[in-house]
């Protein structure tokens, strides 16, 4: 079947009343958690994982994906109106958009980021639609050694690109790998690191780790370190509509941002940070008014926001076609697939074509919903920003505790949650990124499985990883990702400075 027929069958799934409703719930929740500081898409999807026992796979996954890309839309609202940068991918928007808001141009800033997100999200979904079948073709040729090498690449890029230190990123990754070891080895049935505690035999739930690091750790940090920090909320006056001038300056930036963001999302390079900064630099270079940058240039919001969105949709390509998550939220989406006994990868496109294409089609629908939610209804979301911090964080922790306790009705998990939260606080305080922990704990067991399969094929000869050309090239790339920045600092042109 060709792409068009597949996509049409996907729309048949996505446009059922029930799945439309799930998409709407997903993008609405996504926008809300994107707007609210202190809670993000990773925590939200993690907290909602228990519904996988009640809802069918396509409905739940459509909703989870909606939360994932809806949060990108909502996040920009907060970074424009609030002077505290939220997630790292929106730092640039926070710089330029907040400057616009301070000069009374909050409306056009919100509009260009919402429309830009829509343009980028839709173009990137088209990219996803046509690129996925090609990557699936490629993926079908991969054997265990190639998959193992690909996962190693994902490990190295996620830990060296996210955060500002490769060393601390790797430490986070290995912490995640260690957490992933806990429980029963799924190939031999051997219990590992369970210490006879029955709750640990099933492994540590990703919900506990994600909620602990992102919600509890963040909240402890916000209360005990940032309690005194002042935040100013810019008011939204007048129309959110853009003038002809704004359109003229924005549309090229949206397109350029999309073409910068999408490729970065599709390679397992982790995060939307680099493409947003790249897009910002490009816009600044090409603008006929570079002097406005830093003081509220609309291109500086339009481009990076488009890049941010395009790269988050682009990240769906490796997730769906190869089973490779490149961010914390993508890793939790992967574990949502696993709850249904599904493993994203080339075979999913054959065995569950209706599900995958329904999910892809829902991206088109969801982006239209998000445009409506974030443009005419943006005033509603601004209200969410007026919730005072004490009550906001208190509410977040009540939800977090409920989700972790309710998962298996176990107070043990609540105490574990606090321990993980303390760990998250320490990590935040000393600059360790949290996302590699999540990617490590979810991807680690899969990488181990592929490694042992590959070694079963070669009867224990580890040279299989270097004699297969694709796997050898990927492993070389992984080494390069780790070594190159270090070598650059040491032997590069500015090494003596």
């Amino acid at each position, binding site marked *: 079947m060709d792409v068009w027929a597949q996509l049409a069958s996907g729309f048949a799934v996505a446009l059922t009343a029930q799945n439309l409703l799930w998409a709407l719930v997903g993008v609405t929740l996504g926008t809300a958690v994107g707007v609210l500081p202190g809670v993000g898409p990773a925590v939200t999807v993690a907290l909602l994982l*228990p*519904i996988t026992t*009640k809802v069918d796979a396509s409905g739940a996954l459509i909703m989870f994906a909606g939360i994932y890309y809806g949060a990108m839309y909502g996040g920009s609202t907060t970074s424009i109106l609030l002077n505290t940068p939220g997630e790292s991918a929106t730092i640039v928007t926070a710089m330029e958009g907040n400057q616009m808001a301070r000069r009374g141009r909050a409306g056009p800033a919100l509009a260009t980021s919402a429309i830009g997100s829509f343009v980028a999200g839709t173009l990137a979904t088209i990219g996803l639609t046509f690129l996925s079948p090609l990557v699936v073709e490629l993926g079908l040729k991969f054997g265990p050694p190639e998959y193992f090498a690909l996962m190693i690449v994902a490990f190295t890029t996620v830990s060296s690109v996210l955060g*500002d*230190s490769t*060393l*601390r990123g*790797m*430490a986070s990754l*290995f*912490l995640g*790998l*260690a957490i992933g*070891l806990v429980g029963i*080895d799924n*190939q*031999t049935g*051997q219990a*590992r*690191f369970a210490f006879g505690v029955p709750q640990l035999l099933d492994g540590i739930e990703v919900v506990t780790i994600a909620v602990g690091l992102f919600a*509890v750790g963040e*909240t*402890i940090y916000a*209360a*005990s*370190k*940032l*309690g005194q920090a002042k935040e100013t909320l810019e008011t939204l006056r007048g129309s959110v509509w853009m003038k002809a001038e704004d359109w003229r300056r924005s549309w090229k930036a949206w397109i350029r941002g999309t073409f910068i963001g999408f490729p970065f999302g599709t390679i397992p390079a982790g995060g939307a940070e680099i493409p947003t900064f790249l897009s910002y630099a490009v816009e600044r270079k090409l603008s006929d008014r570079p002097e406005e940058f830093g003081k509220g240039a609309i291109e500086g919001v339009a481009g990076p926001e488009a890049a941010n969105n395009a790269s988050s949709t682009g990240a769906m390509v490796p997730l769906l076609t190869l089973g490779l998550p490149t961010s914390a939220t993508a890793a939790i989406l992967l574990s949502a697939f696993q709850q249904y006994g599904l493993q994203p990868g080339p075979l999913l496109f054959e065995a569950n074509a209706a599900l995958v294409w329904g999910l892809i089609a829902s991206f088109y629908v969801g982006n239209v919903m998000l445009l409506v939610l974030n443009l005419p209804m943006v005033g509603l979301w601004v209200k969410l920003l007026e919730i*005072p*911090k*004490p*009550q906001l*964080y*208190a*509410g977040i*922790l*009540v*939800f977090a*505790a*409920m989700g972790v*306790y*309710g998962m298996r*009705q176990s*107070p043990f998990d*609540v*105490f574990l949650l*606090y321990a993980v939260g303390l760990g998250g606080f*320490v990590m935040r*305080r*000393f*600059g360790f990124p949290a996302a590699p922990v999540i990617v490590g704990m979810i991807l*680690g067991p899969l990488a*181990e499985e592929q*490694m*042992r*399969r590959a*070694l*079963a094929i070669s*009867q*224990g000869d580890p040279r299989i990883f270097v004699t297969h050309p694709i796997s050898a090239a990927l492993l070389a790339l992984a080494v390069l990702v780790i070594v190159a920045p270090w070598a650059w600092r040491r032997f590069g042109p500015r090494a003596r400075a």
Partner: protein
Amino acid sequence: MTPSRPKGHLAVAAGVLALGVFVLVGAWDLPAGGGYAQVGPGVVPRIVGGGLVLLGALLLREALTGGFRGVDEEAEVHLPMDWAAFAWLGGGILAYGFLVERAGFLLASTLLFIAVARGFASRRWVLNAFVGAAVAGFIFAVFNYGLGLQLPPGVLRGVLP
């Protein structure tokens, strides 16, 4: 000038190192061989443990030579640790763990809400109690009745529908 050696950095680096040793010791008893692959369940734990030891050692070197790269201890001075807030949050979560099955979901959640809000320096006890109870009631209604998650009614057993 001797390089500064931030104590926190030393402790964290030592913690990573200790975790690595812990994983290695735990991996000791796990069979490393066996099967076609000749790779048993003990191999990856050894790699992970070894990796953590190596990373811990490298972190320790950074900590001893001026602190972790890119972590600005000067800026930290302006963000003093608020231990009271820290204690309110910790107390709230631990109390939740003890109370959720004994006193029930609604009471435990309301107390957690009050404790966290207090951690953020809100002293409007009555307002927070009301809002907390409302949030807890909303969650209970949606998840217990709506989604069929079993949340313990606790002391309110029989009172709740």
